C-alpha cells in the first residue's frame, strides 16, 4: 500500500486509538508549536517530535515522505519566493534586478523546513484517522458555534462526502483518461499542450459524473429519510481517555522545548 495525503493508513497504534477530537485539536496545537519555532534549533526539536510521532504510528518514513510528495511543490514555491524577496548579508549572485543573498537563502531553507514539517504533521492526522472520525470530530468541535447560526452538522457532512468521493473521482478520472487516450488523445507531456480541447475531454466528463453522483446521492439520502443532524444519536459516542491526556502532555513538552530553543543565540 502507498501512503497518500488524505488516505487512511490502517493500524492500532496509540495514535490510531486516540480520540479524533483530541487528535484534531492537538494537530492544531502542533501547528502553533511549529510556527513558534524561530530558529533551526527549534525546527530540529519539532522534527524530532514529528518523526517520533510517525514512528509511534508505525508508518515507515519513506511512506511518510511520500504522502506529502505531491504537495511538496508548495514548499518549493514558498522557498523560492524567499530566496528572491528577502535580502541581506553577503550577496552571492545577481542578475539584473534579481539578487540572491545570504539572508534570502537562510530564510528559504528555514521556511522550506517549517512548511515540510507542517505538511508532515497534517498528513499524520489524516493517515491515522478515518475520514468518518475526522468529520465527527469536526462536527463536534463546531457545535458550540451553532448558537451563532453555523450549520455544524451540514458542514461536516459536506466535508465527509467530499473526502469520501475523492478516491472515487480519482478512479473515474483514470478511466476517462484511458478512454480518451484510446481515441488518440496525447497527454503524455502535459494535458495543457493540446489546448483546451484536451483538458475538456477529461474535465467535462468528470464534472458531469460529479453532478450525476450528487443527484443520486441526494435521492438516496432522501429515501432514507435523512433530515439533518437534529435528534440523531450515535452508535459509538466519542470519549476522551488517558491516552489523550498523555498526548497532550507530550505536546506541551514539545512546546516548552521549542520555546526554550528560541533563547539559544544564533
Amino acid at each position, binding site marked *: 500500500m502507498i501512503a497518500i495525503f488524505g488516505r487512511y493508513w490502517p493500524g492500532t497504534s496509540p495514535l490510531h486509538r486516540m480520540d479524533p477530537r483530541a487528535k484534531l485539536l492537538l494537530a492544531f496545537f502542533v501547528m502553533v508549536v511549529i510556527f513558534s519555532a524561530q530558529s533551526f534549533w527549534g525546527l530540529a526539536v519539532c522534527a524530532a517530535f514529528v518523526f517520533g510521532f510517525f514512528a509511534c504510528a508505525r508508518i515507515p518514513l519513506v511512506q511518510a515522505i511520500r504522502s506529502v510528495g505531491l504537495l511538496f511543490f508548495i514548499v518549493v514555491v514558498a522557498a523560492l519566493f524567499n530566496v528572491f524577496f528577502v535580502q541581506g548579508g553577503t550577496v552571492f549572485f545577481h542578475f539584473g534586478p534579481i539578487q540572491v543573498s545570504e539572508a534570502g537563502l537562510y530564510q528559504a531553507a528555514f521556511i522550506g523546513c517549517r512548511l515540510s514539517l507542517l505538511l508532515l504533521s497534517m498528513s499524520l492526522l489524516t493517515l491515522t484517522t478515518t475520514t468518518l472520525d475526522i468529520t465527527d470530530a469536526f462536527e463536534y468541535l463546531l457545535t458550540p458555534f451553532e448558537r451563532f447560526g453555523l450549520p455544524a452538522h451540514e458542514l461536516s457532512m459536506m466535508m465527509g462526502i467530499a473526502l469520501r468521493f475523492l478516491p472515487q473521482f480519482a478512479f473515474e478520472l483514470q*478511466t*476517462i483518461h*484511458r*478512454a*480518451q*487516450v*484510446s*481515441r*488518440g*488523445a*496525447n497527454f503524455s507531456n502535459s494535458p495543457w499542450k493540446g489546448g483546451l*480541447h484536451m483538458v*475538456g*475531454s*477529461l*474535465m*467535462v*466528463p468528470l464534472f*458531469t*459524473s460529479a453532478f450525476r453522483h450528487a443527484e443520486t446521492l441526494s435521492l438516496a439520502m432522501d429515501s432514507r429519510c435523512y433530515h439533518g443532524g437534529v435528534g440523531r444519536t450515535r452508535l459509538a459516542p466519542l470519549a476522551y481517555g488517558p491516552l489523550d491526556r498523555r498526548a497532550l502532555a507530550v505536546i506541551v513538552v514539545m512546546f516548552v522545548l521549542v520555546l526554550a530553543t528560541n533563547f539559544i543565540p544564533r
Partner: protein
Amino acid sequence: MPIAFEDVSFSYHAPATKKRAKKGVSAARKGAPPPPEAWALKDIDFCLEDGEFFGIAGHTGSGKSTLIQHTNGLLHPTVGRVLVDGQDILDKKEATRARSKVGLVFQYPEYQLFAATVYDDVAFGPRNMGLAPDAVDACVHEALAQVALDFDTVQGRSPFELSGGQQRRVAFAGVLAMKPSVLVLDEPVAGLDPAARRDFLGLITGFHDEGLTVVIVSHNMDDLARLCDRILVLKEGEMLMLGTPEEVFSHEGALREVGLGVPAAQRMANSLKGAGLDLEGGLYDTARLADSLAALYHAAVR
C-alpha cells in the same frame, strides 16, 4: 491484424514502468515477483485472429477489463508480451499505432462524451490522428451512419441532450471514426433495456459483417453463444476455457463453479439429457432444441 498474447501476466502492484519499457521485456521479468494473489492476469496465452467474433466471459473481478486494456497498450504486461500485427506494443510508437488500429470502447462509454456538439465529439479521434478537415468530415459522416444516427439531425446537437441509447451510439461512433480494424467492447449492452440491447447487438453484428474483428465482453451467455466464433472464459485472472461456444458450453459444471451459466436452451437440453432423453451433443439454441424435441416426440408417438 492478429493480436497475440504471449504468456501475459499482469499485476496492478507491479505494472511495467516506463523505465522497464525502455529496457525491454527482460528487465520486466526481473525484480521481486508480486505475491500470487496480486496477479490480475496470469499466463494469458492466445491469439486473436482476423475477422473473428471473440467473446470474453468471467465472474466479476476476473480480469476481463484488465485484459482488454492490454490490446491497445493502455496497460503493459508485467511479464510476457502483447503483439499487435507482430509488433510488441511495449514500444511507444507501436502502442500509438495500435491505438489507431484497435478501437476500445469502455463500459458506459456515454460517460466519456465531452464536446459541445456530437460532431466535435466524434471528430475527436480523427483529429487526434492528424487528419485534414475534409477527411475528418468524411470519417464523422461514415461513423454516424454506421451507428444508424442521422447526420443532419444530430451533428449540431449537444451530446448531453440526447437519450442514453443515442449517447452510447455517439460514443461508439467516436471510436469507429478512427477506422479501427479491431473493435473491442467492454460490456457494450450493460444497463440497456431488452429492445435497446437487441438494437445494439444488431449494430455490433453489423460491424463484424463489414469486416471488423470484434471482441466483446459480456455476462450474457445467450448473447455470447449466439454471436461468437470463440469464447474465452477467465477465472481469477487465469484462462479457464478457450474454444467455440459448443466446446465451452459443454462444460456446464465448470462454468457453474465460477458463477457463470450456460445459455437457457443449452441448460434445458443438458437437463433433459440428464433425465435420459436421447438428445445429441452440440450447441442448442431455442430453435434447434424445439426441432429436436419435436422430432423425438413424433418418433415416440408413431
